[in-house]
């Protein structure tokens, strides 16, 4: 069995952990809430998995589970990005050089 591609996936997984740690190291505390909400929207990436569950030819049960998943993941993605943008818009509004 050819496992090299799978190992590559695990490789990407491991590197992403370190990347995630590094990205957050120095964030001012007033940005923690938008950061959390923005990364929450990214975790809606599971929508990709949900869409792929909607293959033609699958049983109705599998497809309806996939459909429910698409709806929920879309709420997570769309809602998450909009609330983050709303929060950040308030910081922007004052037009100062910083925050």
């Amino acid at each position: 069995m050819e496992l090299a591609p799978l190992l590559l996936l695990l490789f990407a997984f491991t590197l992403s952990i370190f990347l995630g740690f590094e990205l957050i190291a120095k964030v001012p505390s007033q940005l923690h809430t938008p950061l959390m909400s923005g990364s929450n929207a990214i975790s809606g990436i599971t929508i990709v998995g949900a869409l792929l569950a909607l293959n033609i030819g699958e049983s109705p049960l599998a497809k309806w589970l996939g459909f429910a998943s698409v709806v929920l993941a879309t709420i997570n993605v769309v809602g998450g990005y909009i609330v983050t943008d709303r929060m950040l818009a308030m910081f922007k509004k004052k037009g100062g050089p910083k925050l």
Partner: protein
Amino acid sequence: MNAVLINLLYIISSILFIFGIKMLGSADTARRGNRLSAVGMLMAVVATLLYLGLDWWMVAGGIALGSIIGIVAAYRVQMTAMPEMVALFNGFGGLASLLVGAAEYIKLRDNGMDSYLKLLEAQSGVTVPGWFVLVAIGLTILIGGITFTGSVVAYAKLAGQISGKPTLFAGQKLINLLMMAASLVGIGLLTAGVDSEVAFISGVVLVILSLVLGVLMTIPIGGGDMPVVISLLNSLSGIAASMAGFIILNNVLVVAGCLVGASGIILSLIMCKSMNRTIGNVLFSGFGATVQAAGEVKGEMKASSTEDAYYVLEAAQSVVFIPGYGMAVAQAQHAVKELAELLEANGAEIRFAIHPVAGRMPGHMNVLLAEADVPYEQLFEMDQVNPVMSTVDVAIVIGANDVVNPAALNDPGSPIYGMPIINAHEAKTVYCLKRGKGTGFSGLENALFFGENTRMLYGDAKATVSALVAEFGK
């Protein structure tokens, strides 16, 4: 070839996520960063649709329905209710991952292992052993389920639909531990074979266990610790998405999910550090459930009126506002800003002192004060304001409690001993706006309220501040 194009698009969207998170960490670029990551998400969705062969009606219907609900919810939510909204969205993400796991499991049973793995290889170009897929399904369901019910409990606690007090019962930790062990056994049994009834039943049991575990792990955590919990649950939903990526061998799911997972953990640790507690203490100690035994608070709380407060404020040269969750609940931020402007016009120096864990989310107070247009220059972090606190004439504590409790400094018996606080008690006069005489979210008595120089202004924070504003108008 189609698959190559799709994977190239996935790589680009992963890069956009990385840049997006990076830019979210700096004030100047945060908004662009968020939009960049939204573009990345759109790209990932479009790339996925290029697989063709999807049921278009269900795709379009699902995305349309989800978008409408998401847009309406996101635009209607009040700024003060942001923490619970994020918790709820997060829960939906977790449930979505759980359903992906369930749908893939049903597909596996429908098609049989061999043809399922062939389909998977055709879609992803990666060959995997059957047990690997089953373990990934098990982990996705377990983590997704915990994220879902955990987030719902966090939502209910924040929205005040259930008590914010920790719920504890005998043997709780043991039960959680046993259920976790049972879940892992369940994942093991899943690999027994797709046709086996034992495996199917253990899959169903796993779903139930994960949902119950999410509730049991969250209820012992007090409302005051919800920021850390939401951040952790956010991390978990990322990991669930990542596990779902291992089921279908999709690299954008693995990478993006993992990025969120890792950054969420770091954020949680940063928050714990600012409370001077370990993450284990936050999750397992049932913090605030016990009534404080050591260090009986002496003295009595002295109530005052807005008229008296007006005379003190009118003469004050420097005023520090210390906002807490109570300001969010009362939606008092605009009234507070109005009062601050009046005081400034009256010649006082205005500062807003913001504790890193004030409110129910990190940076919660910053968001609210930004909404009310408080100038950025007036916002100070705890470490900047504490050194000058003894020179401050009046400190106004608006619905904050633990973050100004001097017991954290001088009472080794207190559960919050060692937590850095804003030294409001050092100000010449302290006014505390509070709804009633009871203890706050954490259930601790606050020595500050009994202090010699402290006056209590009871009532709704917004009404009290508005009354003060009216006094200035007289």
